[in-house]
């Protein structure tokens, strides 16, 4: 049955979607960075209280962990105040792993927003950008085949094993494939015209109420 709730989808490529919950949580992921000059009164705000010992300022060259949204907001190609480094999964060593066999990597564990976070990284003028973009694309291509295959063929099976290692984008694709498969099976069995309980109502029922009679 058609679902009436359509959440705001995440943006694709370098642009984030302002209202997308997915994109907000993605940009909450942390990035390693470095202070290029000393930053007064910032230590407490960044949660690094008394790290350098010089009151409330962050000394030059100290390492920072900042979320993506902050890195994007503070990034300035003219004046480099904070420089951003690559998270290890996008670095050379991991890129080799991806090019060897992308299917073995647990992308959910490696940061559930591998693709969108990687695309966001391209906003910082890193010299390795072309390689990162290429690796992300190749990873998607080599993993997509398996995702599509399993989502179209696992009918009435426990899919939690299949989904466990997928990144959020891949999970959305997997769900779309599963929905298509289920709807098609429904139609083949002649149940497509059956009016069913709204899935929202069903969800609420499972939680706690509507069961006044039980």
């Amino acid at each position: 049955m058609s679902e009436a709730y359509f959440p705001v989808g995440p943006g694709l490529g370098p642009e984030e979607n302002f209202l997308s919950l997915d994109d907000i949580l993605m940009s909450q992921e942390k990035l390693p960075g470095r202070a290029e000059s000393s930053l007064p009164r910032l230590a407490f705000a960044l949660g690094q209280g008394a790290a350098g010992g010089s009151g409330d300022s962050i000394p030059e060259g100290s390492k920072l962990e900042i979320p993506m949204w902050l890195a994007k907001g503070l990034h300035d190609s003219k004046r480099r105040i904070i420089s951003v480094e690559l998270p290890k999964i996008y670095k050379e060593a991991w890129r080799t792993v991806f090019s060897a066999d992308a299917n073995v990597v647990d992308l959910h564990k490696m940061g559930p927003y591998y693709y969108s976070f990687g695309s966001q990284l391209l906003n910082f003028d890193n010299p390795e950008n072309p390689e990162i973009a290429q690796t992300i694309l190749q990873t998607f291509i080599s993993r997509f085949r398996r995702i599509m295959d399993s989502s179209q063929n696992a009918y009435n099976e426990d899919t939690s094993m299949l989904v466990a290692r997928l990144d959020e984008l891949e999970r959305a694709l997997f769900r779309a494939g599963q929905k298509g498969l289920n709807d098609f099976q429904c139609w083949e069995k002649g149940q497509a015209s059956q009016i069913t309980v709204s899935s929202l109502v069903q969800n609420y029922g499972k939680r706690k109420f509507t069961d006044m009679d039980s």
Partner: protein
Amino acid sequence: MAGERAVGLVRELQRAAGGHLPPFRAEELRQALEEMRALYERNQADVSEAKAGRTDLIFLIRFRHCCLLRNQRCIVAYLYDRLLRIRALRWEYGSILPNAIQFHMSAEEVEWFNRYKKSLATYMRSVGGEEGLDLTQDIKPPKSLYIEVRCLKDYGEFEIEDGTTVLLKKNSQHFLPRWKCEQLIRQGVLEHILS
């Protein structure tokens, strides 16, 4: 770290899958707004200091500004996504919501829901000739006028178009006009039985 509260709201909403509406977090929202006000005030103070010559503060001001924008984005997205969920409720439940759901809505959201209901009703009256057209009917193309239904819970008396009433008792089966019972099926009171 600034912005944690607002992100917490977004995270909770994201975890409630399938369009489920979690309770409205008025207190957290107030705290996030309070945090924004504090950030703004501190920035104002530092701006005047920076104007007086302390240019090394500019970065700090920019940092707080980023936090303000971030909080704003989280809060707007939170409220907007809730409205999308509430709008979906109108289509799935019909115009009257169960109390437990209304409990999860803020006063403004209830008001919004009522206005949305009104707009939708006005629109449905304006299309399809004299009587209007109920857009929430026949979401799947109907094959017959009457359908076989089974009652899943005690609902009480139910009047059908020719004036007779049927008693919808748990586990009883009826042959009813489709358009009359579609909404009850969607609400989980009746079950559609295919022959």
